[in-house]
């Protein structure tokens, strides 16, 4: 149980860290494509995207 919890935490944090590390160690400037990807994510968040999955429901909400 403990190990599975830790692995779950590691996987959750890998989702966050991996693309950032990859971008930081890549050579050259931030490309127009990468800039566009970031802008697209902001546009998606502006439209309210990303908050509709069950983990965003409060613990007291009914399933």
């Amino acid at each position, binding site marked *: *149980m*403990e*190990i*599975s*919890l*830790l*692995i*779950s*935490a*590691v996987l*959750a*944090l*890998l*989702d*966050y*860290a991996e693309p*950032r*590390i990859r*971008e*930081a*160690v890549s050579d*050259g*400037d*931030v*490309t*127009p494509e*990468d*800039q*566009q990807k*970031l*802008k697209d*994510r*902001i546009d998606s*968040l*502006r439209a*309210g995207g*990303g*908050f509709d*999955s*069950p*983990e*965003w*429901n*409060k*613990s*007291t909400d009914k399933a």
Partner: protein
Amino acid sequence: MKKLISKILVAALVCIPPSLVVCGTVATVCTVGCKKLDPAGVYQSDKALYAADRTITEAYDVMHSFVRFEYENRAAINNPDITKAADNVRANAQTQIKSAIALRDAYAATPTPENRSKLDDAIRVLRQAISEAQGFMAKGVKKTTG
């Protein structure tokens, strides 16, 4: 021997999550601080706007990681403080993100020092939320191993 291997494994796994958080944050700081923006991109070399957008998406990613971690492991964590903290993130994350984006848009449209200052304030709020989510996530991991 089996106990020792188990302890080493747990110790290694306990060290990995904070290390990943630090690596991700350092990578973001390095990318924003050290790299140049290709002027042909949508940010047109505006590093302040680019840095703000990086922080906004980072805040979403960290808060999402935290609420997902708490949701998927609620029974194992079994800590009302952590669930309460996750519910607090659930209640406020979207408003905080939207507020930061609105101020980001205002700065993008009119890049005055006043708008920059308001954007910086919103980014500070998000940085605080990132820090809290990371802290509670580490607490959730420690609770089951300590």
